[in-house]
């Protein structure tokens, strides 16, 4: 008697159709993708020779290493004037690197934003590529390269941080410019202004606050990077870290790490405060 109701829907005896979010071919692709990812992951354990049995006892061993070797930290070492001078050096390096990096990032951000770039065919891809290359190469690699070319010292560190900040701020600047309201830009264009004037009076007032915030954030990130460029001979506190790591002075290493953490906490606090001030001044 149910046949009259169901003739058009399905033949007799079939189970009722269940609802699935994805139909047959798509569901196959999805499960296939998940399976491939799992396969890749389990294969990477084999490929990388990761000893899984060591994995479980690892946390206990790390705790023991900390307790045996890194405790107590040699706090006196980090209060010596030599070390404190290197901290000041690090802050100066981060400051200069972030400043130079932003000076380079502003034109790159302008040329690399799709809506404001002077030429979409040539300048835009070049600016994008430069930003990406500066960002893709890790700051330690920049530091090593500049140390090889220019010799040991803080100049190499400043240049490495400049490259790092160029990439970091350039991308954020470009994104910020792409998000502006095009109304003022068109208004100023309509008066016959040059591209530079459009930039100065149509774009810059809109992104000024955001750029300041990004600038402060860039300085914060640059400081974190600056703590290690010295590791490869580019000046600052990284050099002390490297020396003590090589001499296996683990208690001093612990003290240096603690000082880095404290300094980063301070710089993060200062940057958060400054950014909130800037955002309020809007």
């Amino acid at each position: 008697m149910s046949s009259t109701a169901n003739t058009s829907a399905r033949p007799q005896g079939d189970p009722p159709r269940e609802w699935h979010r994805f139909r047959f071919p798509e569901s196959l692709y999805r499960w296939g993708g998940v399976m491939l990812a799992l396969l890749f992951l389990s294969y990477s354990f084999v490929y990388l020779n990761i000893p899984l049995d060591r994995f479980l006892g690892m946390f206990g061993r790390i705790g023991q290493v900390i307790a045996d070797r890194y405790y107590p930290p040699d706090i006196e070492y980090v209060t010596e004037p030599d070390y404190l001078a290197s901290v000041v050096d690090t802050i100066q390096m981060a400051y200069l690197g972030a400043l130079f990096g932003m000076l380079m990032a502003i034109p790159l951000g302008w040329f690399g934003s799709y809506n404001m770039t002077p030429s979409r065919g040539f300048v835009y891809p070049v600016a994008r590529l430069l930003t990406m290359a500066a960002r893709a190469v890790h700051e330690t690699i920049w530091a090593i390269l500049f140390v090889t070319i220019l010799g040991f010292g803080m100049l190499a560190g400043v240049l490495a941080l400049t490259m790092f900040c160029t990439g970091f701020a350039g991308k954020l600047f470009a994104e910020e410019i792409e998000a502006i309201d095009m109304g003022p830009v068109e208004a100023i264009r309509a008066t016959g202004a040059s591209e530079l004037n459009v930039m100065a009076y149509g774009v810059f007032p809109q992104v000024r606050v955001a750029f300041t915030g990004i600038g402060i954030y860039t300085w914060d990130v640059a400081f974190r990077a600056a703590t290690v460029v010295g590791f490869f001979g580019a000046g600052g506190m990284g050099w002390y870290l490297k020396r003590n790591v090589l001499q296996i002075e683990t208690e001093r290493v612990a003290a240096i790490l603690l000082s880095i953490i404290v300094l980063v906490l301070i710089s993060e606090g200062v940057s958060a405060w400054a950014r909130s001030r800037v955002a309020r001044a809007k």
Partner: protein
Amino acid sequence: MAVADATIRNVDRIIAARAKTRTIRALIYMVVLLLVVWSVKTTIVDDTDWERMGSVGNVLHGVVQFLGIDWGLVPNLWQPAVETIMVATLGTLLGVMMCVPAIWFGALNITPYPPITYPIARLMMTLSRSIHEIVWALFFVAAVGLGALAGVLAIAVRSIGFIAKMTAEAIEDLDPKPVEAIRAVGGSDFQVFVYAILPQILPVMIGVIIFEWEINIRRSSVLGLVGAGGLGLVFFRQLNTFNHPGVTTVILAILVLILFGEVVSYYVRKAII
């Protein structure tokens, strides 16, 4: 008359306020400029060994020797490149697992006991973000020995901060209505989590994880410098044997790897979200 007086006083006040902001701004610029001069003097002028660097020609010579590509090295780059990707992937996954407690403690609306657990979570996040990956790798190389495991751990610990922070913020912004709805039809706590909370935070989390994976490729490409395998080790060897075109080749390989990561993350993001 009174109205005009008031207006004039207002105008005076505005002008005075403007003059004040202008003075403050000029002062800030002055401080910035002085700091620049001071920093340039101590870091660049005093600390550089100008004698050793020599003339502009010497520096140019130093740059020129890096130009060129060592094609013979390219076949040897496959294995380290794959290793780098694997370390980044495993590290990101392990980081996701490790950041579960940090997320649980770090979201103000679900943290078990705010005065104690919330600061613990914030401390975990800050520790993870404030210590550079090179330092983490050094620490784990000391703890578990040379090899990829140290790299995976360093990447994992370094990823905790960002993933946990973004996810905890997403949980704090949860819409409570689906939670109530599932509770109202008699769902258990687990069902509330699966059907009301997870669908809301999953898109954010997946986006953050993919973003972090992209950054981790960049990070894992240098961990070899301190003995954790991958492209960094090849880079280090090429540099120490003064094979400068080889150094450029490795850097280009890293660039290609990062482009690959960007392409993959674009498609994965499109497929999942």
